Each structure stands twice: as structure tokens, then as C-alpha cells.
């Protein structure tokens, strides 16, 4: 443990916000929603994983990835491959020309399971692959880009191109990937029906628990020296470099962390919905994932979860009642969080609510004691100006190298 005291790791406001979130996700929602609605919330939560990862990458690290869908997809596909193999046993696929392989392969005249599918017979391998493959891919991209100091806008555009490439590949190589339909019709996990109401409850709580694991990991990173280094790098990358740090390594690290969070989210989606499809991998879903993070507040972990929940909830509600308005709403949201509320919900909370809560906490528990004497006590406190405002890349060419 690298903190002197628990309050260094979690200041009082953070404990409060984590606790409130836990209360909402573990008690309030399960008690007040039917399984259909709860299942929807579970689906929204899978995007919260991505958003939390983006808080680290973008909010703290200043790395805006427009390709998080790729990692979400990789995680989701890894699990979907395992589940598909389980449901493609020779018995239930006996009408195929080649029994025992997934149905879409059979349609594409593939007569043998491709080598890269083989390991996905093992659940252990799959669980490891869900984390490792996306992280490895992120590592490769990270090394290639950050070691060469590709950053800012260029990184965003290149990740976007990677998302485009992945989509075309998945759709084009349908014999190996299921194509545009994705990998569908997943029914059981180790013989256990994943579509029952009971399974839905289990997966919902599993998603919440995993989300909290990710939140705590992210909180640890945020509150560690690495978190402060990221903030430092965002404004003065050269200063950090000339203080003896290999800046690229830190960027690669958070990018990998963000990727693995996204992958866990994708895997949880597969588990809850019973399919995975390339429609999560492309450019549009990837950029939508950024908005979840931006709405919550790009510097707030808990905010990201609320952002993902609220935007998706709004999408469902507006989609049901005024489908035509949804795009307008989404468009305004993008413009709004950039121009009017750069720190999202968390920013609003910090400006208007936090101090009252702090005062209340002071009254109830007495003033906060902490060894962290050099940092204001409140949680995701952000400087008055938006973080983006101080980014000092003045011309695109300079931005490329920053």
C-alpha cells in the first residue's frame, strides 16, 4: 500500500460518493426496478466501464481515444467465442455439413475450426484473454504512438481509423467472426442458462461488483503519484520528461488500463445480452462512449458511471417516445459538455453542492483529519477552469508532437 492512511487513498467526499453509488446500484435499483428494467441498467453499466477507463485516459492523461469500441468489442468477442463454442457442440449442430463448429462458419463453407478459435474452448483462457488481448493490443498501439510522441488530435484520428479498420475486418471476415450479424444466439455458460431471470440478476450484481473493482483500481491510480504525474503531463509534458520520467510509459499504462476496463464492459455485455456484434466497434459507438465520460465529468470516476447511466437511460426513453429527437438531444449534449459544462455533472456538483455536503459531514463527523495536508479535502475537485482550456498546443503540428 503506497498511502500513509486510508484517507489519502479515499478522502471523505470520495467515500461518500462511492457509498452513494453503491447504495443506488446494489439496493435502490434492484428493489425498485423489475428485471427487465434492471437488465437495461446492467447493460448501461457495461458502458460505465468504458467511461471510467476514459476518465483515466482522457480526463487525467489527456489522451482522447476515439477507438474504445475496439477494446469493448475485443472483450465482448472473446467471451462470445467461448459461449458460441459451448453452444456449437456436435449434437446441437448435427444438421450442419461440419457439425461441431459455429453455425456461421458452416454457412461460409469453413470445415475446420480456425486455430485462433481453439483456445476459446477453455473458460480460464477466455477469462484471461478478455483482459490480456485488449491490453496487449492497446500496448502495441500505445508503444507505436506514444513512443513516437503522437498525441492529441492525431492520436484521436488514428484510433478512429483503427476502429474503422476493425469494423471492416470483422464484417469482411465473416467466416471467422460472424460478420455484420456478430456472434449470436449464446445460451449457456458451463451448461447454465444465461438467459433466465435468475441469471440476469446474477450478472447484474456481477457487473456492479466488477465495476467497483475497476473504480477502486482507478481511484488507486488517481490518488497515487502516477495520477498526479498524469495531471502534470497533461499541461507540461516536457517538464515531466525533463524531470526524468519516460512519459510514453505512463501514457501506455493508462491506455492499457482504459482498454482492459472497456474489455470487461464488453464481456459483461455479451454475458447479459447473449450476443456481440460489430456495431459496438465502429466509429460512431466509440465516439458515443466519450460522451458518457464527458457528461459525468471527465475528471470524475463516479461521475462517469452516472454519465453512462443517464445518457443511455435518456437514449432509451427518448428513443421510445420521440425517436426523431434523440439525435438532436445527443448533438446538443456533445456541444453542451464542451461549451457550457466542461466538467459535466461532477463539475456542477462541485460548484454547487459539494461545499454543503462537506459542511454537513463536518457537523456529523467533525472536521476531516488527514495526513494529506497539502491537498484540498474534497473529492474530484477540479480547478475552476476546464482542463482543456489550458492545453497549450497552439498549432496542429505542435499538437502532433506533444
Amino acid at each position, binding site marked *: 500500500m503506497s498511502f500513509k492512511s486510508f484517507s489519502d487513498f479515499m478522502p471523505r467526499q470520495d467515500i461518500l460518493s462511492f457509498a452513494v453509488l453503491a447504495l443506488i446500484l446494489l439496493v435502490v435499483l434492484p428493489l425498485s426496478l423489475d428485471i427487465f428494467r434492471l437488465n437495461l441498467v446492467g447493460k448501461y453499466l457495461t458502458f460505465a466501464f468504458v467511461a471510467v477507463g476514459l476518465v483515466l485516459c482522457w480526463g487525467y492523461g489527456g489522451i482522447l481515444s476515439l477507438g474504445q469500441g475496439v477494446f469493448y468489442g475485443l472483450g465482448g468477442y472473446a467471451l462470445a467465442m467461448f459461449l458460441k463454442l459451448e453452444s456449437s457442440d456436435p449434437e446441437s449442430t448435427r444438421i450442419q455439413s461440419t457439425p461441431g463448429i459455429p453455425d456461421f462458419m458452416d454457412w461460409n463453407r469453413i470445415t475446420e475450426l480456425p486455430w485462433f478459435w481453439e483456445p476459446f474452448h477453455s473458460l480460464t483462457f477466455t477469462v484471461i484473454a478478455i483482459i490480456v488481448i485488449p491490453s496487449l493490443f492497446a500496448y502495441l498501439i500505445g508503444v507505436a504512438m506514444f513512443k513516437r510522441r503522437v498525441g492529441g488530435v492525431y492520436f484521436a484520428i488514428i484510433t478512429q481509423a483503427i476502429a474503422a479498420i476493425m469494423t471492416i475486418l470483422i464484417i469482411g471476415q465473416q467466416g471467422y467472426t460472424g460478420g455484420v450479424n456478430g456472434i449470436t444466439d449464446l445460451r449457456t455458460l458451463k451448461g447454465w442458462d444465461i438467459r433466465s431471470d435468475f441469471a440476469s440478476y446474477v450478472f447484474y450484481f456481477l457487473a456492479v461488483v466488477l465495476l467497483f473493482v475497476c473504480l477502486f483500481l482507478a481511484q488507486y491510480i488517481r490518488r497515487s503519484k502516477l495520477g*498526479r504525474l498524469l495531471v502534470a503531463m497533461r499541461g507540461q509534458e516536457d517538464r515531466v520528461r525533463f524531470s526524468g520520467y519516460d512519459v510514453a510509459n505512463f501514457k501506455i499504462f493508462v491506455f492499457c488500463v482504459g482498454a482492459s476496463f472497456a474489455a470487461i464492459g464488453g464481456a459483461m455485455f455479451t454475458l447479459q445480452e447473449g450476443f456481440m456484434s460489430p456495431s459496438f466497434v465502429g466509429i460512431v459507438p466509440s465516439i458515443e462512449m466519450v460522451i458518457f465520460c464527458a457528461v459525468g465529468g471527465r475528471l470524475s470516476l463516479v461521475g462517469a458511471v452516472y454519465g453512462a447511466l443517464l445518457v443511455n437511460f435518456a437514449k432509451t426513453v427518448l428513443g421510445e417516445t420521440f425517436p426523431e429527437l434523440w439525435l438532436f438531444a445527443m448533438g446538443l449534449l456533445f456541444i453542451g459538455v464542451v461549451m457550457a459544462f466542461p466538467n459535466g455533472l461532477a463539475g456542477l456538483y462541485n460548484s454547487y453542492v459539494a461545499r454543503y455536503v462537506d459542511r454537513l459531514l463536518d457537523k456529523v463527523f467533525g472536521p476531516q483529519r488527514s495526513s494529506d495536508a*497539502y491537498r484540498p479535502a474534497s473529492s474530484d475537485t477540479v480547478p475552476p477552469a476546464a482542463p482543456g482550456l489550458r492545453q497549450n498546443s497552439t498549432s496542429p503540428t505542435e499538437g502532433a508532437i506533444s
Partner: protein
Amino acid sequence: MTAGSNTDFVLAVEGLTVSFDGFKAVNDLSFYVDENEIRVIIGPNGAGKTTVLDLICGRTRATAGSIKFRNQELTKLKEHDIVKAGVGRKFQNPSIYGDLTVFENLEISYPTGRSVFGALTFKRTDAVVQRIEEIADMIFLKDQLHTEAELLSHGQKQWLEIGMLLIQDPTLLMLDEPVAGMSVTERQQTAKLLRTITKDRSVIVIEHDMQFVAEIADRVTVLHQGRILAEGTAEKVKADPKVVEVYLGH
């Protein structure tokens, strides 16, 4: 590329050249810095002063020539390895972390936990806190430790950046215009600060203010169009007619 010779100097720059699209910003430059020497580099705008510092700390890569720091070739090292070897550099515009407090600024510069894993497991021990307070005292910022660095005055930011270098205890300290934009009192305080910190280490300073230069320099190097125009004590350089012509004369 010249191999460069082994010497007793802290820093030996030999045949250093860098060209940007044919324009030689630094042209076949050689100079040597002694242990505990304070070397001031002066020269008109565009003479290549900042580029020399950029080359030494690895921000710009040399086209030809060698830079040896305690006989270790720097031209091939990565920036962070040059820092770890013991070279610290302050930028022309104060470059500090505005979103962090003075304490955190200094803490980040504290020379442990520089790897990813190290940064994750870095612990704010009493020794760290003590060292930070010590440095803060030296750079006149002891009462500002809680303050976010963005809120400091321009002069205080310059000091903070110097403090961030001091905490690393570098063997060679390079300062790019450390008193630019400072008030007279700040300037005096800075001169005092420089005198304390230059004990036990070599320093290269880029400066325009000749009075300040005369006050601190052991030796002065005058650059003009990427070449050395003159070198020697402040008095000698001031008296050199070539220098007067290109630089001081205006």
C-alpha cells in the same frame, strides 16, 4: 560524427552541429564546462543559445558532434536517461504544473518512483516531506506549499521550477533565462538563490542581463549564428570588439 574525447570536464561539447532543413542553428560548436563552474551563454536572438541547451538535454537531436557528460555520451541517450544521469534543465518560460500544488510539484520532481510501477507504489514518507519542505524554504515558497502553482506570481513560478530541479540534485544544472520578467527585488533574491545552489555543481545559464551575468558568471560564452564568437571572463568578453559589434553595441 566526431567521436569526442575523454576529459576531466563535467561537460565536453565537441563539433556539435544541428541543421533544420539546411539552416545550421548550431554549427561545429565546441566548449567545455568545469566542475563547479558557472558558465553563462549570451548572444543575440537566434544565436542558438536555447538550441544548445535543447541539444544537451536531448530535446533536439544533433546532426553531428558529441556531447559528453562525465565522459558519458549524451547524444544517443533518451531525455529521461539524460536527466537520470544528472542533467537538469529549466525552460525559458516557467514550466510548472498549474493544476497541482507547490508541494505536489516538488513531489513529482523528487527523484524516486520514476517508473510506472514506482509511481504506483510511491509513498509519501517523512523523508520526502522533509526534503520538500527544505527545498521550499530555499526557494522562498515555504508558505505557499498548499497553493496551486497556477496562482503563483511569475517570479515565484521561476523559483518553483528551479526548486523542482534542485530536489533532483543534478550535477549539471541548465537555466534558460532564470530572471526574465522578474522585479528588481526578485532578481536580487534569485541571484542569492543561484549563489547558494551552485555550490557543489556546475551550472549553465542563458541570460541577457549583462549586469546579472557579471554578478554570477565564472566564464561567459558568446554565441553568434550558431558559432562561438568569444569566450572568457565577463570583463574580457565585454571588452571584445567583435562581441560589442554583434551584440552589445546596439
